[in-house]
């Protein structure tokens, strides 16, 4: 099995799907000859040409609109929004069109699009190049949000997303782009709406996604020495997320922490925490805790940014508190 980066794994998935299915094409800013800001579409222009690896102007509404319209007549577009922070410029297209065409016309049309976008902080990107945006979309029926944490899942989830008939917002954390991992050659899928227990444990469940998985894993490894057994879950699909895997885990451990990079108020962690409280209250030995970003925009200077995002130590402190230590 080849050891490749997340960027290469995503590139592999796009190349495989474009070769297999003529309906699949990419569109976005600087994705053609340049290969995208992060290189995810590198080489695809040479292989498939400018019709299927389509450079656009800075017109995010048109990128998503063109994707939705072409999907309604049978294409399978993969749109790239360069930075997730830019998605406000096409919010209406995602929320009112992509997510609703199937419902409001009672099933007559489908919008099987994938919107790939680079998200997440920790690198000094500042207020408009660092945000975690799933919270902006948690309240949008019809939309699916997928978020891989490693190269293997990135490839398998992207292929599954392209093959799925729902509109999918596919989040790629910038801190994980250069991370390497074993990735099978050829086509395979990782199931959507299915979380994964990455590390089994007995004392507490930590629900994570994307980069926060690694904060939780590091905290769990350190706490193992202190006699606390931590179970870590990677949600992989953030909306609608996998209630069953999380609730079964909490039923075993009796304690839960939800970690999320976005601000705590009204976000993914709030929903996960609420569902655990509603559905697994009788198993809980302590209140569910959220470890999230603070209620601030992302500051530019690195030490300031570090102050507002969750990290290994903050997850560790949370675990100790919920475990009564």
């Amino acid at each position: 099995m080849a050891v490749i980066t997340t960027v290469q794994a995503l590139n592999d998935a796009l190349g495989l799907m474009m070769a297999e299915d003529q309906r699949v094409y990419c569109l976005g800013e600087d994705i053609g000859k340049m290969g995208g800001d992060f290189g995810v579409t590198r080489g695809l222009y040479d292989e498939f040409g400018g019709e299927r690896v389509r450079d656009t102007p800075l017109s995010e509404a048109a990128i998503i609109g063109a994707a939705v319209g072409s999907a309604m007549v049978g294409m399978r577009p993969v749109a790239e929004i360069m930075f997730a922070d830019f998605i406000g410029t096409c919010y209406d297209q995602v929320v009112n069109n992509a997510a609703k065409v199937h419902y409001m016309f009672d099933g007559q049309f489908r919008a099987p699009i994938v919107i790939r976008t680079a998200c997440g902080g920790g690198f000094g990107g500042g207020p408009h190049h660092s945000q975690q945006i799933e919270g902006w979309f948690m309240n949008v029926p019809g939309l699916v949000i997928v978020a891989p944490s490693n190269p293997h899942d990135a490839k398998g989830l992207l292929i599954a997303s392209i093959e799925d008939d729902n509109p999918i917002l596919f989040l790629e954390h910038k801190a994980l782009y250069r991370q390497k991992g074993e990735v099978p050659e050829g086509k395979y899928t990782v199931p959507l709406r299915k979380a994964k227990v990455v590390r089994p444990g007995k004392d507490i469940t930590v629900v994570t996604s994307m980069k926060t998985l690694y904060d939780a894993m590091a905290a769990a490894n350190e706490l193992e020495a202190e006699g606390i057994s931590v179970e870590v879950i990677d949600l992989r699909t953030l909306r609608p997320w996998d209630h069953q895997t999380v609730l079964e885990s909490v039923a075993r451990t009796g304690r839960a922490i939800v970690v999320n990079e976005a601000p705590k108020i009204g976000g993914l962690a709030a929903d996960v925490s609420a569902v655990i409280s509603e559905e697994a209250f009788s198993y809980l030995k302590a209140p569910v805790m959220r470890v999230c970003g603070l209620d601030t925009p992302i500051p530019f200077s690195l030490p300031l940014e570090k102050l507002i995002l969750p990290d290994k130590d903050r997850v560790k402190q949370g675990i100790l508190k919920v475990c009564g230590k």
Partner: protein
Amino acid sequence: MPEVSPDQYLALFRDMWRVRKFEQALEREFKRGKVPGMLHVGLGQEATLAAIAHSLRKEDGIFPDHRCHGLLFLKGTPGKKIMAELFGRATGICSGKGGSLHSADASVNNFGDNGVQGSYMVTALGVALGWKMQGKNNVSAVVVGDGTSGRGEWHESMNLASVWKAPVFFICVNNGYAISTPVGFSHATEDLVDFAKSYKIPAVQVDGNDVLASFQATQEAVAHIRAGKGPYFVEYKTWRWQGMFSGEFRPAEEVKYYKEDHEPIALAKADLLKKGIASPEQLDAIEKEAEAEIEEWVSYAQNSPLPDPAKATANVYIGWEVESWQS
């Protein structure tokens, strides 16, 4: 200019009456409380709507705007299913889930209206792009009002349609006002062709109350697009009868001009009589037939059942169901 045969002219005239009677019946039922939600009607814009409908093929795409109930049935959807949709009934074209602002019919490539004005201009671009990539020769027609020219999607879609030579037919129904705001007050130009020309899209203005002129301009637009020459823009200068929420706000002489002196059906009628294409009795019969047909649709809608409760949670996702109160 393409010739218009007497039969074609009469067909246009009949469809103007069908649109007029449909909208009048709808307005009447709305005031009676039988039609829920909000209502925008296309009264006064019948010539433009008939001209568009008679120039598109069934396989061409249409994105009708909020005053386009007429286009919905003129495109080929049974009128009773449109009426039932506007009444929120189970027999509606979208099972009562879309209503006036979201009535689509995939079987005739009607991709539906949109509650956010102009938002679907980029969707129409996408349909055109998809068809072009698939080697199809269909036209993707999108109807927008004058007020939409302030929206970003207007400019993004025109720029990219021009760059991609996408088969988009931009139909601008300029009735002079965005709700209460006159076009020229809030836009850099009163002539919205100016915007299209700046994107290097062929663009013409036509008297949208003159059905023959509108028909001929539309035919030329569609021929250009179908020949693979890229997008085309037509601005139909017209006027809507419907005031706004607080009633009539426009100058009395303007109202008189458009509702009496330059009223589209009266103009066509006078011309048909002058050219000897039909007798006054024949033209009156066309009006009465249209009225009877529309009233049948109204009674079909009124007698149709309300939607099955299961429809409320149906077709949110493909592949799985959402939670309902029962579960």
